[in-house]
């Protein structure tokens, strides 16, 4: 979806630029503030010159147009899309463009995040400079070279001071701090942290703490590759002060994305090294990580010749996720439920907590079933779920449609030979079934699994996959044998498995039928009944191995490869970092310690292959690529507005206040409909909810279905990955249902009393199941006695008996299995009927048989006796 949206945004941005006329980059901040979500676009002429006989001659001049899809209301780890055209084609392409490993390239485009704005009129602490630009290694900030190799000392535009032997920081740090060699030329670009600390950045030890080796977040700064036609694309991950405190970008501190198309150092003389134009042809790769021409490498991004060519894109950040906790001291009203909503809730919550006439909204992610149960027994005012759940309590529950979103199979897959990321992944239900049922053996260990010897080792070796997705490598990897999924119960897993179950080929495969290439399902999963809400880990095969580590840690191998996690967010970040959750790495701290198993390493860029089930919201926020799922025999559809809309058009209303029916059997008939579409509802009681809570829930339903459906990056707006509900078109029934349910929740039919402020309700909570009485441990307050023991689980009408104002309440709900929950509603219940047919009929029947038998036998005796006597 993000890619489609990006295109649209770029078009809008382009039009705006055209209408506004040529717009200098310096005017960026003000303009961007006006256009809330239009992103950023500008064109700049970049040049490389050389001073010949005192006259600056232009060697190369290019008009570089840069556009960014989103520059405002950014969140931590969000990926923004940068597109440029007209740059110098790159050569010697590196497999991994991030951080230090991107340095061995020629003519790339350097992307950096820097604190402050590029505006000379601002005070120094708000202004961006080289010293506020983040890099994750010292190699990108400090260069040492012999005098002949120090190309920066020939920079035409540098000051005299910068061309000195020891330059960049004054006074130059002593040799012990920087382990500097006195006779080398050294240039240091120190880093100035948000709190004012200046890090010399000349050794690993003098870098900011976030740049430590093995830091929790991989490098985000990159040297991106420009194609032969001068255009290029990159997804740049922005960091807030939560991820990177030293960089310190947040809502109050604007930052800048600096785009530096490397043109080469402009030399003040004819120095051979400085005037170099590169040794790699355009479009070539640098697999061996060979040395490059320094003059055109990104290593000297800070040199004035390069720095003056920069294009600065101002970035504005959204409220931090804890803004509500900081800015609003009211107690939050916590809704529980679907993690599909987390990106929307992130943007929605400030629009509630920052207004005094609204309540403090909070969404706590939790499995749909658990959240619904919490709401049902009165411990939460509302739950967010995406399917109907069974009501155990006495009070009816209504569902207000809140968002149309869904799940995506996100992926990070690189094409071989350094050809960039693969972007057209297509998956069938059967491929998903193969991945989920652990039918790929993953490695020689898994290949020992009985019954799976003929299966391809991983997804990319499967002929079915290769037919759909051409041009990928055939290297088997453990991470390619699985799709990272959820371990806990979720409506997402339910929908995903329903999609599999409704496909004839996929369900036949799970049932045990081999595909046409002879691949069979993992015998542990053969005949698994689908759909399921919680994916079971059924395999029990522990492979035999001669390796010491495997001997010390015998484990179910395929379950370790699958290693599902609890949260969709974890999966999204794993795909973002291309860090599979496969737990098969053998490690030990020292050779004398025992081996232990752990998570394998991050995948190297250039050979990534990882899949994960994510929410559409997360996928859009992090700019993850999403797979197109099979919707008909030859048709694949990815998640975007059109395909979600096509799917929602099939949602049929059921009863009033109940969830819409959106079934895979119906979706399968529409090849334009995205199979992963899900509707998220806010479920709440329409009776028995406390007045204060009912008002809040109704307010949420109303606001979220109106202003919460305006798409945009701002507070209270709907983020990417969600289809807006509108009062018209295919989403009209959903919109109207939300309004109706909001009214019903606000009205609260038959609500008798609100939550008791005293202890009696709470103490009733520990009433024994079946309710026979206030047990002593519950603080001496008795609740409904023996009666409750036999309360049926069906709703009951209010009793004719008046309910006392004070005093304890009679819990009105008793679950079938005896789970007895505190009910905040006083309500009398009728005595249930405990009947027993056995008790009624047994003894009379016995009597009857005994009598009848006696009469019969005496009659027989009498007749036989008479016959014999005759």
């Amino acid at each position, binding site marked *: 979806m993000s890619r489609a949206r990006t295109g649209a945004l770029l078009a809008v941005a382009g039009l705006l630029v055209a209408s506004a006329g040529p717009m200098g980059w310096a005017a960026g901040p003000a303009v961007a503030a006006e256009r809330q979500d239009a992103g950023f676009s500008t064109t700049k002429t970049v040049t490389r010159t050389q001073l010949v006989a005192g006259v600056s001659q232009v060697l190369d001049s290019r008009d570089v147009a840069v556009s960014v899809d989103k520059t405002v209301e950014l969140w931590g780890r969000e990926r923004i899309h940068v597109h440029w055209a007209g740059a110098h084609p790159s050569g010697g392409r590196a497999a991994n463009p991030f951080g230090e490993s991107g340095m061995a390239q020629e003519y790339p485009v350097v992307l950096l995040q820097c604190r402050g704005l590029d505006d000379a009129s601002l005070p120094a602490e708000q202004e961006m400079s080289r010293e506020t630009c983040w890099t994750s290694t010292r190699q990108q900030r400090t260069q040492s070279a012999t005098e002949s190799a120090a190309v920066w000392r020939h920079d035409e535009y540098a000051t005299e001071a910068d061309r000195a032997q020891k330059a960049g920081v004054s006074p130059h740090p002593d040799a012990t701090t920087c382990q500097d060699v006195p006779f080398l030329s050294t240039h240091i670009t120190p880093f100035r942290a948000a709190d004012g600390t200046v890090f010399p950045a000349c050794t690993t030890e003098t870098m900011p703490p976030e740049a430590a080796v093995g830091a929790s977040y991989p490098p985000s700064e990159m040297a991106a590759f420009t194609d032969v036609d001068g255009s290029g694309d990159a997804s740049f991950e922005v960091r807030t002060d939560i991820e990177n405190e030293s960089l310190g970008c947040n809502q109050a501190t604007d930052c800048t994305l600096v785009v530096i198309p490397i043109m080469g150092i402009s030399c003040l003389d004819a120095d051979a090294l400085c005037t170099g134009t590169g040794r790699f042809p355009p479009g070539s790769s640098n697999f061996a990580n060979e040395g490059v021409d320094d003059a055109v490498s990104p290593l000297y991004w800070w040199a004035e010749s390069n720095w003056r060519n920069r294009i600065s894109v101002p970035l504005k950040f959204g409220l931090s996720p804890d803004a509500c906790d900081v800015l609003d001291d009211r107690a939050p009203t916590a809704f529980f439920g679907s993690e599909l909503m987390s990106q929307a809730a992130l943007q929605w919550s400030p629009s509630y907590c920052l207004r005094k006439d609204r309540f403090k909204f909070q969404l706590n992610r939790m499995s749909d079933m658990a959240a619904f149960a919490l709401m049902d027994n009165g411990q939460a005012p509302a739950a967010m779920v995406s399917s109907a759940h069974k009501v155990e309590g006495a009070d009816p529950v209504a569902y207000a449609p809140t968002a149309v979103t869904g799940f995506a199979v996100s992926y990070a897959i690189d094409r071989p030979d350094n050809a960039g990321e693969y972007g057209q992944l297509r998956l069938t239900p059967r491929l998903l079934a193969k991945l989920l049922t652990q039918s790929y053996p993953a490695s020689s260990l898994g290949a020992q699994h009985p019954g799976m010897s003929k299966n391809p080792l991983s997804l990319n070796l499967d002929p079915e996959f290769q037919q759909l997705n051409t041009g990928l490598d055939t290297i088997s990897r453990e991470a390619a044998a699985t799709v990272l999924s959820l371990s806990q119960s979720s409506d997402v897993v339910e929908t995903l498995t329903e999609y599999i179950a409704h496909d004839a080929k996929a369900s036949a495969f799970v049932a045990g039928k081999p595909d046409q290439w002879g691949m069979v399902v993992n015998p542990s999963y053969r005949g698994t009944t689908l759909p399921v809400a919680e994916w079971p880990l059924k395999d029990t095969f522990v492979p035999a191995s001669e390796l010491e580590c495997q001997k010390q840690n015998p484990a179910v191998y395929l379950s370790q490869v699958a290693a599902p996690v609890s949260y969709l967010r974890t999966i999204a970040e794993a795909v973002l970092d291309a860090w599979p959750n496969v737990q098969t790495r053998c490690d030990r701290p020292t050779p004398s310690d025992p081996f232990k198993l752990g998570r394998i390493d991050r995948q190297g860029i250039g050979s990534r292959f990882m899949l994960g089930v994510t929410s559409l919201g997360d996928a859009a926020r992090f700019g993850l690529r999403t797979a197109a799922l099979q919707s008909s025999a030859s048709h694949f559809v990815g998640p975007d507005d059109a395909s979600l809309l096509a799917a929602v058009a099939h949602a049929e209303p059921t009863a009033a206040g109940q969830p819409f029916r959106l079934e895979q059997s119906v979706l399968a008939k529409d090849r334009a409909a995205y199979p992963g579409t899900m509707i998220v509802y806010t479920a709440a009681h329409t009776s028995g909810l406390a007045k204060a809570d009912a008002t809040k829930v109704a307010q949420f339903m109303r606001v979220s279905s109106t202003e919460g459906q305006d798409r945009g990056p701002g507070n209270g707006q709907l983020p990417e990955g969600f289809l807006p509900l509108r009062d018209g078109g295919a989403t009209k029934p959903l919109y109207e249902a939300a309004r109706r349910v909001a009214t019903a929740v606000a009205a609260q039919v038959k609500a008798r009393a609100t939550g008791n402020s005293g202890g009696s309700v709470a103490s009733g909570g520990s009433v024994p*199941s079946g309710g026979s*009485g206030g047990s002593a*441990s519950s603080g001496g307050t008795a609740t409904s006695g023996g009666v409750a023991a036999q309360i049926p689980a069906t709703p009951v009408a209010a009793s004719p008996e008046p309910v006392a104002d004070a005093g304890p309440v009679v819990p009105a709900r008793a679950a079938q299995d005896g789970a007895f929950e505190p009910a905040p509603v006083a309500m009398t219940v009728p005595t249930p009927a405990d009947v*027993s047919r056995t*008790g009624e009929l047994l*003894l009379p029947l*016995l009597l009857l048989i005994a009598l009848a*038998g006696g009469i019969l036998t005496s009659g027989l005796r009498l007749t036989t006796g008479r016959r014999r006597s005759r």
Partner: protein
Amino acid sequence: MTMTRPAPVQPRMPAPRPPVTHGVATPDPEPARRLGPVGDAVTVLSMICLWLLVQTLVLGAVSENRAQNEAYTQLRGELAAATAPIGGVITPGEPVALLRFPSLGRELVVVEGTASGDLLGGPAHRRDTPLPGQQGVSLVYGRAHTYGAPFAGLTGLRPGDHVVARTGQGRAVFVVDRVRRAGDPVPQAPSNGARLTLVTAESTGPLSAISAASAVYIDATLAGTAFVAPAGRLSAVPDSERAMGNDPAALPLLVVGLGLVLLLVLVALVARQRWSATLVWLVAVPLVLAAAWSATDVAVRLLPNLL
């Protein structure tokens, strides 16, 4: 399994005759023997039914009477020694309270646990409720018709009648509120006091004396101050201990009991070949009767506990 039951009833047949083993001791065939297989089956069936009726209605009362006496003696001793249980987890079957119905002239010892088997010895107290007199609502179940019928006629209690409970904590006088049947509103739980709800079964119609169709509740509210209820009661009881519950766990034991009956009958038949009929009858009848009695007691655990 019922097919193995002929044994206990055979000895009770008038003028018992040797079974199919003709000619060894009694060569002369009697006319009564000529009823044929159908007649035999009917006889046996009606005898089994009669035995069940007699056991549950008559013999059961004897055993209940004895169990009450035993429990009374034990509870009396414990009350005197102040060791009667007042809370926590009490072993099922232990006597916990003495209930007196002045208006009915009845005194009953209440044991702990409301499974069908515990109710054979008299009224029983449900384990997840406080004891009578303690804060909260306590439930006491009693059989309506079988095994001494301790709670028969309890629906005749009128509002205002007293029920006196004596437990390890003292004497508590309850005043009957009403007799409550299905559909009647459940009264509010007492905030600080205590209620005793007696549960038994009843039926309507001509055979209501031996039929128990539905549970009936008699609520009685404590007059006076409730005792403090010690912590540690169970939080739930299995279905077998709820009203009209039965206890399928008795099935394996029943198999063993019936197997014993069958074995004794077979032994008697073999012995009949060697020894005189009088001797065999004299020895076998008490043994078979005892085995049948205990097997029937187990079988009753499969029936509703309020019957």
